[in-house]
């Protein structure tokens, strides 16, 4: 069976320890975890988490079943099964000395980045989009210029009426 990437979105009780139950499940059962983001929702008793994982169909089925079995998990959906948006945010600090400033600014514009901090020798560029776009920007800037990269990990939501609600 072929391995593919899945974006799983879950609502969990906003209780201390519920995140470690989710994270612990992945390490305990040897599942891949590429990224995990979590924050409270508009309902403060609920947190929403997005997990990017990979595996063959059977593994993904087990992952969703095992997550569902956790007592703190209220609902979950594998976003990959239907149309969805999955974005992440990146802040990247790059070397921007005199002669290169304009070129970096142009590159940032092409990727619809936003320069959120400027010093004499550096820029911090904020970029949002799917992970491929972020990867591609990193490549375009080049390792030589990069001082720091911080990425939020993917957050996702289903398109249209479909949704994850209690």
């Amino acid at each position, binding site marked *: 069976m072929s391995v593919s990437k899945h974006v799983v979105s879950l609502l969990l009780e906003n209780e*201390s*320890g519920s995140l470690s139950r989710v994270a612990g499940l992945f390490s305990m059962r040897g599942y891949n975890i590429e990224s995990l983001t979590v924050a409270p929702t508009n309902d403060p008793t609920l947190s929403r988490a997005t997990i990017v994982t990979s595996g063959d169909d*059977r593994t993904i089925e*087990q992952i969703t079943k095992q997550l569902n079995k956790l*007592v*703190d998990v209220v609902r979950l959906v594998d976003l990959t099964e239907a149309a969805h948006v999955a974005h992440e945010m990146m802040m990247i600090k790059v070397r921007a000395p005199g002669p290169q400033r304009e070129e970096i600014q142009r590159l940032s514009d092409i990727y619809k980045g936003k320069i959120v901090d400027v010093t004499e020798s550096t820029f911090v560029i904020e970029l949002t989009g799917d992970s491929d776009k972020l990867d591609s920007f990193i490549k375009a800037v080049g390792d030589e210029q990069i001082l720091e990269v911080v990425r939020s990990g993917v957050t996702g939501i289903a398109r249209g009426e479909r949704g994850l609600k209690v």
Partner: protein
Amino acid sequence: MELSGGEILIQSLQDEGVEYVFGYPGGAVLHIYDAIFRQQQVKHILVRHEQGATHMADGYSRATGKPGVVLVTSGPGATNAITGIATAHLDSIPMVIITGQVTSKYIGTDAFQEVDAIGCTRPCVKHNFMVKSPEEIATVMKKAFYVATTGRPGPVVVDIPKDFTAPNVKIPYEYPTDVSMRSYAPVSGGHVGQVRKAVELLAQAKQPMIYTGGGVLMSESHQELRKLSQELGYPVTSTLMGLGAYPASDKQFVGMLGMHGTYEANLGMHNCDVLLAVGVRFDDRVTGEVEHFCPNAKIIHVDIDPTSIAKNVGVDIPIVGDLKVVLTRMLELLAQDSRRANPEDIAKWWSQIEEWKAVKSLAYESSDTVIKPQYVVEKVCEVTNGDAYVTSDVGQHQMWAAQYYKFDEPRRWINSGGLGTMGFGLPAALGVKLAHPESDVVCITGEASIQMCLQELSTALQYGLPVKVVNLNNRYLGMVRQWQEFQYEGRYSSSYVDALPDFVKLAESYNHVGMKIENPADVEGALKEAFAMKDKLVFMDFLTDQTENVYPMIEAGKGHHQMRMHPKVGELS
């Protein structure tokens, strides 16, 4: 009613109808112990080690179906309990374990006897709760019992900081009558269409097998299983955990399957065309190498836990649901629809199974000079009329008990199947004896396992629990020795125990009765004498054949059709 947190905790146990709490006091639970002292309804059993408490509660639960309750202190109290919690977790045993915690303001400061009990137990519980205020205790207890006993059962830990149980804070008490958790909804009935498909498939089988497990006992659906099996007339095999759900002495029962299963059960699995799997989880000790597992079978799998389905082995008709509901539905469908498998096919299949049975895969070499462990188990079964509660530890003796004691009723066979916890047998037997004081309770063990929770002989003395201990003493870690013989060319690395206590004197030092049996001719008499002593714990030390192995055996990487048989199979009767 205004009560302190400690009183609320004990009152909620009373309201849950709890008879016994197995525990050990310590600093963080002293307020709770004071509340125990000031009431009579919930009886506390003081153990000698927290592991013993968990196994006693576990044995009590397995023998009754009621949740087992444990109370331990913080730090080492909690960590000592973990082996028993994990044991219950792997076998899906409902338990509520209350762990004391240091005073809330000291949490996270590496205080005396502080350990993160929630973190330590997380991977081996069904769920755990950290109590955050005295007001929460009653609700958390209600939820703990609810989660532990519903769906696929399991252990639930409740961690309570000491200050929340203090006597100076009184709060109104009312035990919740019901509980709802939006994130926890155990399933009940199976999908009707799937059940129908399953019944249709069963009616088309030519070489069917019914493979049953511990789930049948958990869901109390052994009657439904028996009716269904007899209605269909198909061969029934069982996992180690499911023994007794279907009567071992019934003609349709072909014995246990798996690593030490019978020839007929394993070959039946390998050659079947339709497999009905109920309350099982396709454990590796059952399936052997999954690549070779049931190569020709369409598989129907009924289980309450969706994660058990298609975890290790692909399934054709998955049915998630309570076995009792699903099996009842199957029986109804069979009553409405007279279509059945072709009787000639089934008769042909049975005659094939009879041929395999004739190989006598459980036959062993008898002896007049040295005690054969299998013989002892057979005699234990005879002397107790096959109706005792039998607990075991882990290793060769466990397999022999499973193979040679014929369990005809559910909840009689009590062992650590999933985790394989040595030390389980004696404390579990004590828990069983509390639940069934009038019944024979016997712990079949080995000289290595018994020493892992031996201290509970003292608990047995304190509470007058006259269980019988059958120690199959071969002076080896027998199963380790067997694997070393088969797979490591007989290099017996650390598998010989040459500094054993005198078990007779040891038992006597606790005011129990000790017996040493060295001759085959004395086995039966000793057992009769021991079981006649209704008021005494009798420790029977049987010196058994040191080189006896458990057969048949499926070794690592092999399938059901590749069993290693007794070297003299065919010559033995």
